[in-house]
């Protein structure tokens, strides 16, 4: 989770990623962020997020995204 939070903070240092659960709905993450995140998650965690999992629900909070990574790691 720490690594993921660092990635997100690098993109938007002013955002409270621990608590915000509307990252997509509030327009905090944009398409560039999603593309970068998916590439970095692949690098750091060695998991490829399949297209059907690239949906708003999985990117609205750091928690949801981390849960997806853990699920894909299994």
């Amino acid at each position, binding site marked *: 989770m720490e690594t993921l939070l660092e990635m997100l903070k690098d993109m938007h240092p002013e955002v409270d990623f621990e608590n915000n659960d509307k990252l997509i709905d509030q327009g905090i993450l944009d398409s560039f962020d999603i593309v970068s995140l998916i590439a970095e998650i692949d690098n750091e965690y060695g998991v490829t997020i399949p297209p059907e999992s690239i*949906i708003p629900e999985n990117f609205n909070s750091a928690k949801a995204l981390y849960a997806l990574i853990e699920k894909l790691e299994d």
Partner: protein
Amino acid sequence: MQINILEYLEQTVKRLPDKTAYADEQEKLSFLEVYDRARAIGSYLSGKGVYKEPVAVFMKKQPATAVAYFGAIYAGCFYVPLDQEMGLNRIEMILEKMKPKAAICDESTADLMKSLNYKGTILSYEDISVGKIDELALSSIRDNAIDADPIYTVFTSGSTGTPKGVIANHRSVIDYIDNLMEVLKADEDTVFGNQTPFYLDASLKEVLGTIKCGATTYIIPKSYFMFPVKLVEFLNEYKINTVCWVVTALVIISSFKVLEKTVPEYLHTIAFGSEVFPIKQFNLWRKHLPDARFINLYGPTEATGMSCYYEANRAFELDEPIPIGKPFKNTQVLLLNDKDEEAAGGELGEICIRGVGVTLGYYDDLERTREAYVQNPTCKAYPEIIYRTGDLGRYNERGELIFVSRRDYQIKHMGHRIELGEIEVCANTVDDVESACCIYDSHKSRIVLFYTGTAIGKDIIVYLKEKLPRYMVPNHIVNLEALPLTSNGKIDRIKLADKI
């Protein structure tokens, strides 16, 4: 001879009054509705004495926004598009530069506009698009119009920190749209899926292509470009068959392997541009849509959008760039070398555009206009203006034009044209930043800001987010003890690039 872009609409509305012109997921407007509402707006503006001057259009991206543009033109004016995405700071800069007496807003922007330092009249689209149509006033305006009259001013990044307002006229836009539609083979069966923002000239392709051809444009919600499966589902639901997108948008679909699961089944014409298409991704598209036409478009805002095209109908080697091909009909490219002579053979030269597609210049900025819109150096005997793009190119052995690089620090990021200098000027105004320099990391497609001083990176980002459009905010920020310098004492960008 056509002299006004509204003639597109007037011809089409006779043929296809009830056909949908523009739609999004909330609203659909037929050609007749577009025609009537645009004329109502034109009549209203004319009644208020707004004539031959800029009219700001500050609306969210929706079918009605195109109507407001046409409304301004019906009034004999030219429109200045504004969008929240630009950031409020830039919107205020544009209003200050253009000083429009009237601004058309919608429910989503009216309150915001009131909060800005704007002295003119704020008009509500909802109110002025349903009023009476003054046929007499509109026909008198048209009788006094010529094709050299301006049609819009759109703003593009400026390296000195101030954006430049490119002003185009009817002649250049008609020339561009006619030739582009011929290349796209667009007709009334064309269904466009619009991606590009309405506040950029890039969206003229769909907005004007639609009224010229009697086509239909569906506006795709921006959020779908983050979620590629939804995007492809949208294309299929609305039977989109033609797209003119930035490369980034196409790559989002192919790089996430969406095409292996589902393809846009109606799509037959795919135009792209503004960036280099990674060949691996291009080949994926070709593999999954073998019957589609792929067209690379190239051109600057200063030459009304696009100037050259190349139909990419063969496979490319991974290290081979897709050519930008050849100019549209009635446009010429001059490739000028360091001596301002035409580059011969495969020699490198600056791409310069010649033809009526060249726009009028930068609004109220003769100095910067004269730097880029210059006398054709190969023509000594009479005045002829060409536009120097600052792009370097050469011809390959097939005689096709290839884009090689920029001669300055302008970049293309997510399809947007950005002057790194504009970001640097802005970063240098942050308290406790001593010196700032931006480098584009083309490998990771990100803007990296290096700076010296005691400012905290987070504060710089927060500040830049307020001042710049979102797409110009650096994606990564690095604090250094000192910026490396060249022997001349300039910032050494090559050494900085090595630090990425």
